[in-house]
């Protein structure tokens, strides 16, 4: 239970707690002490990594994830335009084969602003809550949210510009997302309007895909430009209340990325590709509190770290299904 609370604390913006060396379990201390004894192995890893950096392989899991994300969003588009009626509506609320689904953050905004909840919205919200609890919470972000996809492309450009010195990465306090989540909750209650929906790039992009583009896309473009030139993945990292909502749902999810200390050689490859590197604090040398650690609630389960890890220390698991 304490790991869940710690995971939520970090999700809300807290700095990951570290344990003093003397308080670590015996076996963990042992491992930390002897990790680099096998010089030959370490040498080999470094050669492999140098090769990987010279010729970056295609990230197969990433491409699969993009395919899923595009497929889900296209299903909305196709359902409407070809009148298949399989997935009607937009990401904010929809019917899948007739069953109600409601985005948790949009539903929250509506409930707080309207102060009245109809049964269909309850059904849609509960359905989606269970769905994303089963699938990992922020899995919504990396596997479904259309803004996440364009932000990933913007990030690729951003990293190239950083190399050339044409862009910078201004860091913000991660608690700003929690503050914004609270700000939008309070605004919905006080003003009686769904204030966040006005600027939600997720909603705007989803509707633009289904119902056609509009000037709202200018706002989304400005966000992307800010991320490209000034701050890597700023919206998803420091602002988006949707991410926080799904993060809380996923805090107790059975689907997590799983870390195995014995396989880790602390190369730091995973943290370089991660949207939320604070969840990977445990991979830093001497920081793991146990031989195996589940990665926390803020993780979007994008699985890029699983691809990036040169030594197979990061995998994903479904509690109760796989060992």
């Amino acid at each position: 239970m304490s790991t869940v609370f710690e995971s939520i604390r970090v999700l809300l913006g807290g700095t990951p707690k570290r344990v003093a060396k003397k308080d670590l379990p015996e076996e963990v201390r042992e491992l930390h002490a002897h990790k680099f004894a096998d010089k030959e192995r370490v040498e080999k890893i470094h050669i492999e990594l140098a090769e990987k950096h010279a010729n970056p392989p295609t990230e197969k899991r990433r491409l699969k994830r993009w395919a899923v994300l595009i497929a889900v969003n296209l299903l909305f588009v196709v359902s409407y335009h070809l009148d298949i009626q399989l997935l009607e509506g937009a990401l904010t609320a929809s019917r899948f084969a007739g069953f109600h689904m409601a985005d948790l953050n949009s539903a929250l905004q509506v409930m707080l602003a309207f102060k009245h909840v109809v049964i269909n919205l309850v059904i849609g919200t509960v359905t989606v809550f269970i769905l994303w609890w089963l699938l990992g919470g922020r899995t919504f972000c990396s596997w479904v949210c259309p803004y996440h996809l364009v932000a990933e492309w913007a990030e690729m450009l951003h990293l190239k510009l950083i190399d050339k010195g044409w862009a910078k990465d201004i860091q913000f306090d991660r608690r700003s997302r929690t503050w914004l989540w609270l700000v939008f909750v309070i605004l919905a209650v006080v003003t009686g309007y769904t204030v966040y929906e006005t600027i939600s790039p997720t909603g705007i992009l989803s509707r633009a895909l289904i119902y056609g583009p509009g000037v709202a896309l200018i706002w989304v473009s400005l966000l992307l430009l800010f991320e490209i030139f000034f701050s890597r993945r700023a919206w998803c990292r420091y602002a988006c209340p949707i991410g926080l909502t799904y993060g809380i749902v996923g805090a107790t999810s059975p689907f997590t990325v799983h870390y195995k200390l014995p396989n880790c050689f602390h190369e730091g490859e995973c943290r370089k590709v991660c949207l939320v590197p604070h969840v990977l604090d445990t991979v830093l040398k001497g920081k793991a509190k146990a031989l195996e650690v589940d990665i926390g609630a803020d993780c979007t389960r994008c699985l890029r770290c699983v691809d990036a890890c040169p030594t197979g220390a990061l995998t994903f698991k479904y509690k109760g299904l796989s060992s």
Partner: protein
Amino acid sequence: MSKKPQKRLTPKQRERRQFLRSIALTVGVGGIALMGMVPVLGKWVQRLRPPGALKEEKFLAACIKCGQCVQVCPVEAIKLADLTDGLGVGVPHIDPRDQACDFSCDGLQCVLACPTGALIHEISFESEVDMGVARTVNLKQCLAVNGQGFKGLARGADFDGKLRYAEIDRWNPIKLADHPYDLELCDLCVRQCPIEINIAKCAAEDAQQKEGKVDLVAVRQKNECAPKHAIELQNINGVMTPVILDGCVGCGVCEMVCPVEPAVIVMDSSESRANSEGMRTL
């Protein structure tokens, strides 16, 4: 060592700057979102909302901006607003001059589709709808007022708007541009009014039943027949004039079919005849 023009910040200073920067980010994003209230509070636009819509403020709050109402409308009358509507972005509305709500779905499909009750489920028939009220403007231009007839296509050959003509196809609306008229005195606004058509249909059924020909009235549902007339041509001082009556629900068909440019009848969504139990009038 030469001094750098920029001072090196201590970790504490850096942390403080980051904190302030993050406060600025929070205030900035919150502020930008709040700017969405400007077009709403300033009433920049008056939108005609779909059937069953709650009172404007409640409607904007209850709508989850998903467009399911858009998807079920057979005449594609419902559109989602852009960011120019501020908080109203993604909220459905109807522009009746382009495409009015002609109730050709028969069961208020948009109401049934709404997942949040922004379109209230308590209504099922057109006479219970309460979107607004038609208003005559610039009556001097009205063909009927001028004693003129109308021949041809109400809105020209290029007009995309659709209407259901039950006598032509009970189930499928057709393009207005595929249905020419030849009228001695223009009465398009009355002739195509869905409420008036409903009243005429019910009256015809009643007459047939009286003659013992059919037993349709037995399967009639409560409220299926409109209780009040919506519009009629009245002889006012010898001039035939369209007059809006208590049964008007604001569907906008009269505005769409009016052949005069600009239309002699427009919808006013700020007014209401309180035809429905809907909260639009509360």
